[in-house]
């Protein structure tokens, strides 16, 4: 059975079709689940795609967090199921408390639309379980609030528990400790600012995102390797 991925659509999401296509391109199946729904229809993994959910009103991710589907997403995460938030999806996962910290405005105070190098730091996550540690991937970014921040104790924990998943090679947005992606304690919930779905076929300029999406499909099929 090919893994089935639920892609959550909020009013204002805009990367959901890219995610669906890239997953289908890799042999998975994907379906869009609207934010007002209450179950994930048996999906093996969830992707919260990028965009501007609920217009980013109040704060990025602040309103999306209360959408009915988020209870199902949290339950899926608690049960160990893979959940990946890309860009705005990362912001939503922090607002929902499924990942620690917050994404503040970029240090340069500019919206960034670029292609950057990110280094895989940990392979103990649903997004990197089939990648190689220290691999450098060329992946697009597209955000204003991508500057990860958290308190010193949280950063200490993220480092000690191998939860910094990817770091920017050349930090574009001022993110704390060059963080581009983090995960929860058990590695099944991951948030990242870069867009792997936009680097999923050579014709897009890079297919370096494939190893990340492949990891997600592998995690969806086999479950995430736990620390140990």
């Amino acid at each position, binding site marked *: 059975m090919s893994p089935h991925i639920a892609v959550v659509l909020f009013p204002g999401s805009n990367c959901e079709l890219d995610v669906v296509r890239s997953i289908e391109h890799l042999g998975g199946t994907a379906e869009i689940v609207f934010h007002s729904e209450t179950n994930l229809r048996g999906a093996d993994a969830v992707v919260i795609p990028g965009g501007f959910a609920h217009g980013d009103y109040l704060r990025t991710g602040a309103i999306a967090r*209360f959408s009915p589907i988020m209870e199902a997403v949290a339950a899926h995460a608690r049960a160990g199921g893979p959940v990946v938030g890309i860009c705005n999806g990362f912001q939503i996962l*922090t607002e929902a408390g499924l990942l620690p*910290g*917050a994404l503040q*405005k970029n240090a340069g*105070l500019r919206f960034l639309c670029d292609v950057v190098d990110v280094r895989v730091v940990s392979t103990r996550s649903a997004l990197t379980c089939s990648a190689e540690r220290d691999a450098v991937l060329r992946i697009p970014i597209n955000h204003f609030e991508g500057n990860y*921040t958290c308190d010193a104790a949280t950063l200490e924990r993220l480092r000690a528990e191998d939860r910094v998943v990817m770091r920017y090679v050349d930090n574009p947005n001022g993110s704390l400790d060059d963080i581009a992606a983090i995960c929860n304690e058990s590695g099944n919930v991951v948030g990242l600012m870069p867009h792997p779905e936009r680097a999923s076929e050579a014709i897009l300029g890079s297919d370096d995102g494939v190893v990340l999406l492949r990891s997600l499909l592998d995690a969806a099929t086999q479950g995430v390797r736990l620390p140990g």
Partner: protein
Amino acid sequence: MKFEARVEVSHLPGVLDPQGATVERALPALGYRNVSAIRIGKSIRLVVDAPDEAAARTQVEEMCERLLANPVIEAYAIEITELVENGR
């Protein structure tokens, strides 16, 4: 009783404020060269029906923690005043 709550949400020190930074660059262009430390936040007003001021404040604090502010990057201040309806 009805109370008007004014909630001021501001960035915690150290959190970047592009709007404040832009305005701080614009004011000297108008000749105001003695201005610094501009921070732009949000002002939220709402009316709550509660038995007393303390109850109203407790509820608005809870709203701030749960939705109106993100404690990781934002601070908030609450001001509560009793609403006196017209003609009474």
